[in-house]
């Protein structure tokens, strides 16, 4: 039985060069219960249809942003999407409860190595810290934000044969979300969802 409907909002502005996110997007398209949307494909001129996007949010209970990390944030269209779709009166504000109790998470690739994203590393902040604006966006809209699902060192993942494992974990994660088999508090606690999926409890 499918319990949840999962929406993957995928943002990659140059997909012909993508080595990590494109396979993840394609894997997501194959899973029942998952709606995967290529935002740059749907709105090549950023002409985002607010009405349709809001309806799509109402139709799903898990929202995932899938993107490569650009300057410690999302590619531009995901920011635009938030600015337009998460309106006052819909996502937040008086009487707004459209997104309440939905689950939100980011699935991203980062160029730097995991050691660099530490307070003593050369990028100074753990990835979860850098994604605080998105975490707070979820919180303001009443959504539960899980830890991010991350692939570090993404530029060499293919060469070092790390991509295949990441894709299978991604499929495992999406299936678990569809089935409702995720321990939400535990998945919020960890630094990254990969750790949760690797743990005995997460290995479903």
């Amino acid at each position, binding site marked *: 039985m499918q319990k949840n409907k999962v929406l993957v909002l995928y943002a990659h502005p140059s997909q012909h060069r993508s080595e990590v996110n494109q396979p993840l997007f394609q894997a997501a398209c194959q899973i029942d219960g998952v709606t995967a949307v290529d935002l740059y494909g749907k709105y090549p*001129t950023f*002409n985002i249809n*607010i009405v349709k996007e809001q309806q799509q949010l109402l139709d799903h209970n898990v929202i995932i942003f899938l993107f490569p990390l650009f300057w410690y944030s999302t590619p531009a269209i995901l920011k635009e999407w938030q*600015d*337009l779709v998460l*309106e*006052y009166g819909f996502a*937040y*504000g*008086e009487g707004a409860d459209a997104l309440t109790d939905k689950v939100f998470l980011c699935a991203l690739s980062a160029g730097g190595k995991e050691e660099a994203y530490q307070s003593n590393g050369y990028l100074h902040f753990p990835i979860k810290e850098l994604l605080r604006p998105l975490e707070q966006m979820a919180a303001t809209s009443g959504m539960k934000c899980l830890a991010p699902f991350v692939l570090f060192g993404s530029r060499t993942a293919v060469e070092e044969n790390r991509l295949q494992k990441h894709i299978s974990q991604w499929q495992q994660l999406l299936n678990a979300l569809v089935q409702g088999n995720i321990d939400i508090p535990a998945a919020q606690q960890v630094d990254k969802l990969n750790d949760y999926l690797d743990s005995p409890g997460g290995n479903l």
Partner: protein
Amino acid sequence: MTDIFLQAFIYLAAAVIAVPIATKLGLGSVLGYLFAGVIIGPVIGLVGEETTAIQHFAEFGVVMMLFLVGLELDPNKLWAMRNRLLGLGGLQVGVTTAVVMALAMLFEQPWTIALTIGLIFSLASTAIVLQTFNEKGLGKTEGAQNAFSVLLFQDIAVIPMLAFIPLLALPELQAQASTLAAAADHHEQLSLVAGLPGWAYGLVITLSIAAVAVGGHFLSRPLFRFVANSGHREIFTATALMLVIGIAALMSLVGLSPALGTFLAGVVLANSEFRHELESNIDPFKGLLLGLFFITVGAGINFAILFDEFLLISALTLAVIAVKAAVLYLLALIFRVKGSARWLLTLSLAQAGEFGFVLLGFSLQSHVLPAEMAQKLLLVVALSMFLTPGLFILFDKVIQPRFAKQANDREQDTVDETGTVIIAGIGRVGQIINRTLMANGVKTVVLDYQTNQVDAMRKIGTKAYFGDARRPELLHTAGIEHAAAFVVAIDSRECSVELVKYVHHCYPDIKIIARAFDRGHGYLLRQAGADAIEPETYHSALELGVHAMKALGHHPFFVEQQKAAYKNVEEQQSDLLYQAWIDDSDGERFDNNYIKLFLQMEEHLADAMGKDKRGVHSLSEREWTPPPKGYVDKIK
């Protein structure tokens, strides 16, 4: 006059009945024509003596076919295949002639007759084989390419053969003939070279070939352009025919093969922008004449001799096919032609050909062969041509599937090539489309009916062809079967709708992208089956509106948003408008419902772009709207 009508009707009716049936049975059109000939000739005797006369006329189909073959073959390609042409072709003719001659001498024929027979049977049927390759779509395969070089060599080799055969004349036959000839008024063919000394003959021939090559290259373009600009399609057809017939006449006058001359002219014109148009003009004539030729072959079969000596003739036929096939198979081995291609080469060229008839007739005239032997050989040639479709069926049903299976097992992932895009109309609109595609490495074929446009495109290195894109044959030669998309950018409302309708009907898989002049034209195109339609003035008008708004001092980004809002409403409403338009199919398209909807759209537009000041939240004002003042106090 009545006779001619009656005969033409009989020939046409036979073809009309026999060819579709043969095609349906998978036998190919050639066998259909041959059967049609047998039925109207020997079987029910509707036609008789005149077939030989018609055959001479129908041989012109072979000439036209070689012109078309030449058109498909530019000089670079010809040069690239020189090894196959001379090696494979030369050895095929040489070895086959030698083997057949040796066999004939075994049966105690004098060497002159044996050699003549060898020469006759070394030739295969260009007409049957190329026509069949075309019909079965085998033309581009390796086997067919090799077969083509052999056929080409044979067609060229016929010319020296015709010169050589009279030297083999038998003294006793000649003596017999000379007594007859003294009585009869000898019919001399019109010739420019009769009685010239050797060196002058050579000079005349060289000059004629040079005239065809140079004239074809330099004079044909201005001529075609002059004719094309007159705008009369039938005059263009007349010009194409005039060219082919003129060259054939010139070649006959100097004693060369008309087929060779037109082939040469075809090669010279292969790079011309008029190539596709020429092809589509000549092609129907070629098809009909070749059909006629095959009918006459069928009709000319002498059943009396066939039945009297059935065993001898069928044994000879099978022997000829076996010897030819064996030689071809051996050569295919030597030239490393592999797999199904080797079998295609072997089986497709195992018959004797129409030039065999020509050589037979000529040998008879030159007293090289006795008459009764020529009759039998004629039957052998015809019978082997009859059996050719059978060999093709053998290839299709038995050999091809076996190799196809092997090939499938071997390679799974084929790299798919970028599909070609055909652009009809290379005016202002087509040019931009073409440049966009070419810049992205997409192969385009451009068609236009205005010669100056085609010229201009050719100057900047585009593959542009002159021709009317509405002609099915032209679309076919431009490769529409393999194209991924078809762009309609021609400068006529009616023609573009017609073109979209035709292409959508015949090639439902191809994506049709069409330029519309206005809303109504866009609906017509959509109804005709176009997949993507853009009105030509819409986007530029919208941009001009943007400039006007900016001139009034509006912020560029705000103006851009207003433009987007306009497009959104237009897009949403256009479906409704189209439905309203299509519902009212009685000529008057813009009925009350349509007008109502149109006014409604105007209203939506005003609303969306914020001109409506009724205090309602309009669409454009919704974007990036800040939360209401004092909202912070209401959020905990």
